[in-house]
């Protein structure tokens, strides 16, 4: 045991601590938590296992199946690569501009720029398409400046634009968090030693935020893999279309397509782990940060923020408001019918967020404190859940609940619905939760252990307060995703349980645009206030 030595070393290192200290030997041996982590990983792997079993038992002829999924597979890959690269670039840029510069209103931008995450993608895309129609905001603006509005808005380009605008917050949020805790002193030293601002960024800042960028881009990639509603409306034919179109008439092809998604997810998760490497990021938190002065570049920086917000929020919200206003004018909207769905939506999202963070925490502890093969596999299972479309996860859980002895009561219960959300969205909490675990350095835990022998008191006074920002951020992402989830909600929810997303869907699919508009605006309002109250305000630097 090297406890004493570690503490002594930590003390010797002074206030700055020993953040880059590699894990000690005592920490790499698997403990009881390893098995908890593995069991949780197994839970997350249930839908994937279901897909594999179905592919084997349905025994689709390989050549024909491959013929059917080859084209969509290639298109899915193209879109996912383009969208994640774009989101990585925009998300990083916006994070830097809103955290590390003297951009005017940067705190307001930080809140507003997260909001594109709150719209269900199908309604976001639908509202975006409506903006191009005569009378829509894009159409009118383009015409006012003398340009011919495009007649069609569809295909790879359209899907790329819309999905990038809806997903960059997945990168912006973790990168912002990382940048906010990064000390500026090293960067300043680099500048004093003659580096240009750009050199200082790429040599000093970039290596520190790279894991956050990669983790965010990975989420965007997985999100795009499983995305269905938006790409379908935008006429871009991906693997999810194959899964949906064949789910009834040709199940072998449907599950083969789902399996192809899984293979892609495994490949990209592995690649991300490799790229991120084992480097333990600098955990020392910043004292004071001196913002970079933008000078004349305040104008292009503000325009960039405005452009991202316009595509991701202003255009869809304008269309939704037009729909809502028309319906309210005609008295076609019954607001009373939306009260219960609103309560359901907020309630189930909050519960899911808390449960997800608790479930993911043991895996995060394993991957950060005892990195090895088993924790990596468990983490991969968590991440893979995001690449499987919600419908497939829901079907897998429904079939298992129906047929597994002793679990019949789970079917059409809230517990199963929340389990579905946890499996689908656990990936979104994982990176932030790992960050939270790293926020309690080994030396702090050692010292705490010496000073306070009672584990629960220790956790309450040392671990939880230090981990809180990361846990809250992870839970916040899960909450936002759950608020707008549709396919699993439709299939798994108890009878009569409706959410704002199901209301939006039922209005949108039958052309009740007024109802869609009102319910969507309500969803945005609920998401924004919950995010502000629970996630941003408590963690934001005053």
């Amino acid at each position: 045991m090297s406890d004493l030595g570690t503490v002594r070393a930590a003390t010797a290192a002074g206030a700055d601590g020993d953040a880059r200290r590699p894990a000690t030997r005592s920490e790499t041996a698997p403990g009881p938590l390893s098995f908890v982590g593995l069991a949780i990983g197994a839970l997350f792997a249930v839908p994937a296992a279901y897909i594999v079993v179905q592919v084997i038992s349905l025994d689709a002829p390989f050549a024909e199946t491959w013929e059917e999924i080859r084209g969509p597979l290639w298109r899915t890959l193209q879109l996912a690569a383009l969208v994640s690269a774009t989101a990585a670039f925009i998300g990083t840029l916006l994070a830097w501009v809103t955290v590390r510069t003297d951009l005017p209103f940067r705190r307001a931008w930080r809140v507003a720029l997260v909001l594109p995450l709150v719209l269900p993608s199908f309604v976001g895309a639908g509202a975006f398409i409506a903006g191009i129609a005569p009378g829509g905001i894009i159409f009118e603006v383009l015409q006012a400046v003398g340009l011919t509005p495009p007649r069609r808005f569809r295909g790879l380009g359209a899907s790329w634009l819309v999905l990038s605008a809806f997903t960059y917050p997945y990168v912006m949020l973790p990168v912002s968090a990382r940048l906010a805790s990064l000390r500026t002193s090293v960067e300043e030293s680099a500048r004093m030693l003659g580096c240009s601002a750009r050199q200082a960024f790429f040599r000093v800042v970039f290596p520190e935020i790279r894991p956050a960028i990669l983790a965010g881009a990975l989420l965007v990639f997985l999100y795009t893999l499983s995305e269905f509603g938006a790409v379908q409306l935008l006429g871009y034919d991906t693997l999810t279309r194959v899964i949906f179109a064949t789910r009834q008439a040709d199940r072998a092809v449907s599950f083969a397509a789902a399996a192809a998604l899984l293979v892609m997810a495994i490949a990209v998760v592995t690649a991300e782990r490799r790229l991120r490497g084992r480097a333990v990021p600098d955990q020392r938190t910043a004292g004071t940060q001196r913002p970079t002065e933008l000078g004349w570049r305040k104008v292009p920086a503000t325009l960039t923020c405005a452009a991202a917000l316009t595509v991701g929020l202003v255009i869809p919200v304008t269309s939704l408001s037009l729909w809502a206003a028309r319906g309210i004018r005609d008295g076609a909207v019954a607001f009373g019918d939306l009260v219960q769905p609103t309560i359901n939506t907020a309630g189930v999202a909050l519960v899911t967020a808390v449960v997800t963070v608790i479930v993911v925490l043991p895996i995060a502890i394993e991957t950060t404190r005892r990195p090895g093969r088993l924790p990596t596999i468990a983490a991969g299972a968590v991440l893979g859940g995001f690449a499987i479309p919600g419908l497939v996860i829901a079907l897998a859980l429904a079939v298992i609940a129906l047929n597994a002895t002793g679990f019949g009561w789970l079917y059409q219960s809230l517990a199963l619905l929340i389990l579905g959300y946890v499996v689908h969205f656990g990936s979104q909490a994982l990176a932030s939760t790992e960050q939270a675990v790293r926020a309690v350095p080994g030396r702090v835990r050692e010292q705490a252990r010496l000073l306070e022998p009672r584990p629960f008191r220790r956790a309450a006074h040392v671990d939880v307060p230090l981990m809180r920002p990361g846990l809250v951020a992870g839970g916040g992402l899960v909450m936002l995703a759950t608020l707008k989830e549709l396919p699993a909600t439709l299939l798994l929810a108890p009878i009569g349980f409706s959410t704002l997303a199901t209301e939006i869907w039922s209005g949108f699919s039958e052309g009740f645009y007024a109802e869609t508009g009102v319910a969507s605006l309500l969803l945005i309002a609920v998401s924004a206030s919950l995010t502000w109250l629970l996630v941003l305000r408590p963690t934001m630097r005053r």
Partner: protein
Amino acid sequence: MTTSRRLLALATGATIAVTASACGGDDGDSITLYSGRSDGLIQPIIDRFEDESGIDVDVKYGDTADLALLISEEAAAGRVEADVYLSQSPGAMGFLDENLAQLPQETLDLVDPATRDDDGRWVGVSGRQRVLVYNSDNVDPADLPDSVFDLIDERWRGQIGVAGGNGSFQDFVTAMRFTEGEDVTAQWLSDLDDLDPVAYANNNAIVAAVGRGEVEVGLVNHYYNYRALAEDPGVASVNHLFAAGDPGGTLIVTAAAIIDGTDKADFANEFIQFLLSAEGQEYFAEETFEYPLVPGTPTAGNVPEIEFDDVGSLDLDELEGGLERTRELIADAGLES
């Protein structure tokens, strides 16, 4: 710690609220309905049934095909969760065939024989006719074809909106196979694909696209345009009917069935009979702009009357392979996405 405490309090409160809402409901007379038709279209008439009969209807809304999958999985596990199933089209009923109970003859007899299952396992509730929706700003009505076969013309290259993955398009193709034969249908699909039609997610997306001039015409069900007009009377989309008897004008019925094994067949039957009562049929005519299927019920003022003898109603039982074969044909022609 205040934030954590506030979070915990909120989560606890939320759990209670959500659980309360999910467990609400009493043990009186009730049935469970799986509805592939959305609540905007169907909930008002369900409310009236509850008021008049005293029977509670617990509804699970969802996509027609997904609910059919759930019902078949429930049946495979030996469970009966739903008592009644409402589908947007007969195709899903064909998929569920062996999970559906025999309907009483008196219920079947309420509708025109052309709009119910020959084996008596489902009954049509309301009808939607296949039409060609066009943009009145860009299209001269004189150019519009009388037959769906005349739509195969260079005039419409790149201008036809199609939803190949949509249930009612598939049912229309199934009907065409029935009346015109496999070869003619396959040829028509492949000719249509040669004209570079534009693929959309569903009927509704096509009507919206035609309304904003993205494509000039689209193959859809008639009532979506009436819904679009109800939302925005200024929209430029107009329905064009194919000539009487043309497969392009097939009537697609929404259907109701009782799930096999339910112990609430009587209540379920009462509910279906209510949908087929004068009150129910008038609701579908006036509120959702569909065709009532009970003879003698008038259509809404702006919806033209229809003769059931003139519309090719389809009988999936007569067709080998049903939906699967139709989907193959559509996919082979390249029209699926």
